[in-house]
């Protein structure tokens, strides 16, 4: 049997329409499932870091260690290949726009604890061509490492340096493997996900739990009675680069 041009066009159009219809049903299904899942129920996750408390414990890396152990974050031992979910940075680098000439020594000298800010208006999400990173309804800027193609658009878009790229095979550089969490592969971007896997089981993020001086408070901004909401109402806090309009969800007491 041979088909002419007209028939061919009709058949392809039919297949395309069927495909579109299928996609429609799938996304409706996905939407319903998402609304039903506990993790998305009317929450807006955020974190408050009390740097004064953090500084009581000079040189402490407990939160970084806990996070990197939980999530199989590799350590290459050099800045170029570095993968970081939580890290420390000088005040003047963390809060670049705060360029007062005279700043208390204590603030100037002590490091600031940095994370992905889980921005309310995340530029990394807008640029990702594969939706490997997206904003969940509960505020978490999530990563799907199955989907990331390693284009690093998100790294260019993020104004906070929160994302790291796996230039090299990460698995061989993990001192102790946590079998409950995957590793990544070469060519994939990674960052903090607010411990989505722990939140799903009703646990707090690993860093928050590991801090000996309780310098981090994690909670739901939608709940007016949450500890974080109360603290934000009582103490003046700062966010990194607010002038960019990304609306970070990590708050600092300086």
């Amino acid at each position, binding site marked *: 049997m041979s088909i002419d041009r007209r028939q061919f066009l009709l058949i392809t159009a039919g297949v395309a329409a069927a495909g579109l219809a299928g996609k429609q049903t799938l996304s409706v299904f996905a939407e319903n499932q998402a609304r039903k899942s506990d993790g998305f129920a009317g929450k807006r996750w955020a974190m408050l870091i009390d740097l004064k408390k953090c500084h009581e414990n000079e040189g402490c890396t407990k939160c970084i260690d806990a996070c990197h152990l939980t999530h199989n974050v590799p350590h290459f031992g050099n800045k170029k290949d570095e993968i970081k979910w939580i890290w420390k940075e000088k005040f003047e680098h963390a809060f670049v726009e705060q360029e007062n000439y005279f700043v208390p020594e204590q603030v100037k000298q002590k490091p600031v604890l940095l994370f992905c800010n889980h921005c309310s208006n995340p530029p990394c999400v807008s640029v990702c061509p594969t939706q490997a990173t997206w904003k969940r309804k509960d505020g978490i800027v999530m990563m799907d490492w199955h989907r990331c193609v390693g284009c690093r658009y998100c790294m260019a878009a993020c104004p906070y340096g929160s994302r790291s790229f796996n230039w090299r095979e990460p698995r061989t550089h993990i001192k102790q*493997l*946590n079998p*409950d969490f995957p590793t990544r592969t070469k060519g994939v971007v990674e960052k903090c996900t607010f411990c989505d896997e722990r939140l799903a089981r009703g646990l707090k993020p690993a860093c928050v739990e590991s801090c000996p001086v309780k310098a981090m408070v994690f909670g739901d901004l939608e709940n007016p009675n949450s500890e974080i909401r109360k603290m934000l109402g009582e103490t003046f806090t700062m966010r990194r680069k607010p002038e960019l309009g990304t609306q970070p969800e990590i708050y600092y007491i300086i």
Partner: protein
Amino acid sequence: MYDTGKVLIGILIFILVFTSPMLINLSGGKASVKANPVLPKSGKCIESKEYMKGYHMEMLDTWRNLVVRQDVRFLKKADGTFFMLNGVKAEMSLTKTCMSCHDNKAKFCDECHNYLEVKPYCWDCHIDPAIAKKGVKK
């Protein structure tokens, strides 16, 4: 055609010789390589053997999308109740749920995957329990 009889006998002998491997196999031969996945001694799988044989890869794909993209984490039975595993809700997880029983990747997963020459990339990231015990070498 000249020598029809001889030609026909010749063709018959050719066919017999050509198909001899199949004929020998039919009369009681044995396959030299066979996939032989080792099943856990006790416990009951969440799905039937037949379903798993045919569709475990699609099931895992559905799981990954539900868990990662929609935060639907826990495994439900047909009646809507949760599957329990060692006293906690079972997660839709290859390593935490499937491999808590099928803990020997080499003797279970690899057995069929090697036989069929398929190379799933699950373990590029997800951790084979045997490796987790041993630790990775530099």
